[in-house]
């Protein structure tokens, strides 16, 4: 028994260290963003909102933030209905080709992002979509689709399709029965899918690096460019805000999932 408890302690200690390693970046970014020092010192000499002021007072950062939020919002508005429709087809069709289609729709998760980015850049360069808002939104819709589809397909798995059949046999149209009977019951999975598409668009960096430019540069592209040159603590402030936004959204998604 004694060796067992020793082994247990070792495992618990090891796990605690790994979890610390997982949380370390977040734990470090937040205090740094509130530091008054120009250079990174830890712990910060004194607290200040200097880097947040720098961020909110800088027109270039603000413009990039507007681009990111607009792109993410449009991505959700387009990717969610497309993804729900595709998930409905995948879950309710018995056609064999649906399996192939399902796999094809997961391609954005499989193809290394750098290849996707360069490929889209080549195509956009031909059709004049480089450095445009629509180009950025389209690319992010494509990248967000797998999240919506995965989440909603999972939602359909716990939904009894017979209910929709009943509604239709009672004379309700297909579309109406979907909106009245089915959608309310898979709502949580649709919301989760939409949230993940939003986070994916907000965090997307590599494709944006290649295809965005001029006034339509997302936040991540400006951050990446700034990081190559020097370590600007303003980025710590932006990172903290982005992380807080992600946490909040994931929290909403997970509490909604539990309610079901």
């Amino acid at each position, binding site marked *: 028994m004694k060796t067992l408890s020793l082994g247990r302690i070792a495992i618990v200690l090891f796990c605690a260290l790994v979890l610390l390693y997982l949380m370390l970046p977040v734990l470090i970014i937040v205090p740094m963003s509130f530091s008054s020092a120009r250079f990174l010192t830890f712990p910060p000499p004194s607290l200040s909102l200097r880097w947040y002021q720098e961020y909110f007072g800088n027109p270039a950062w603000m413009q990039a933030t507007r681009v990111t939020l607009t792109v993410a919002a449009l991505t959700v508005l387009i990717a969610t209905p*497309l993804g729900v429709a595709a998930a409905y087809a995948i879950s309710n069709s018995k056609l064999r080709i649906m399996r192939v289609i399902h796999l094809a729709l997961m391609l954005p998760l499989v193809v290394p992002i750098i290849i996707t980015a360069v490929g889209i850049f080549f195509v956009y360069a031909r059709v004049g979509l480089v450095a445009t808002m629509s180009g950025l939104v389209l690319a992010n819709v494509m990248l967000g689709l797998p999240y919506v589809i995965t989440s909603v397909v999972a939602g359909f798995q716990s939904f009894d399709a017979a209910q929709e059949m009943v509604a239709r046999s009672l004379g309700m149209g297909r579309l109406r029965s979907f909106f009245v009977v089915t959608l309310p019951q898979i709502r949580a999975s649709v919301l989760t899918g939409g949230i993940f598409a939003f986070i994916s668009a907000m965090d997307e960096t590599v494709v944006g690096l290649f295809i965005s430019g001029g006034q339509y540069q997302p936040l991540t592209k400006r951050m990446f460019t700034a990081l190559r040159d020097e370590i600007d603590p303003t980025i710590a402030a932006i990172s903290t805000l982005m992380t807080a936004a992600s946490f909040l959204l994931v929290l909403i998604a997970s509490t909604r999932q539990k309610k079901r």
Partner: protein
Amino acid sequence: MLALASPALLVILLLIVLPVGWLAWQSIYHDGFTLENYRRILNEGIYWRSFLLTFEISLLVTLLALVLGYPIAYAASAAPKGWSVFILALVILPFWTSVLVRTYAWLALLQRTGVINQFLQHIEIIKEPLALVHNTFGTVVATVHILLPFMVLPLYATMQKIPNDLIQAGASLGGSPSHTFWRIFLPLSLPGILAGATLVFVLCLGFYITPELLGGGRTVMVSMLVSRNVELYNQWGAASAVGVALLISVFAIFLIVSQFIPLDRVLGQK
């Protein structure tokens, strides 16, 4: 039903199938068919050394992620519910934090005047700051961090399904804890190991942001070859060929793995 899936399919076809197809075409066609771009990968040291380095780093990252991730997944599956939720939350939250943000955080932690060097100097373990970043070390530390959830989640999903009865049966028949672990638990968790290792390895093969920012220009991974050939040298043909070679590697791995476990099990994680 097909009509419902077609808008999404159209987006996928236009924005990923077509671009990647275009890439493949460009790698073999430039004023006539040519295999020059592929010959270069085999002949020029920078190219094949980068492929070699990328595979080495991916293998190392996968092994480290397994060693760090397995106990975490085990703890999450064996611990009481409250703890298990807590552990999973600590794994999932960084997972949904931007890769760029986490890379930046590691830069702040590891650089010469960074948090870790300051701390080590403060407690007088070292005099001169250590070179922790702008090299392969920094790249690996941050990459393992970013990819660790992709190892833990499939592992946890598999371990959760291992019936506790089996372990108890093993113990009641006189098996020591370590014996029941090695002979019963570990073999049953193999599908999870395979799924997690595949995900981490494949994602690492194509990793871009982290090696670009933390590699210091010396750790040139394949993805960086692609971007440099586009951005710096305007060599679209060369970039395309490298991209196609990378893509073929990734698909080959998925194909091999799909012989052992269903692919949706690997892809269902994120």
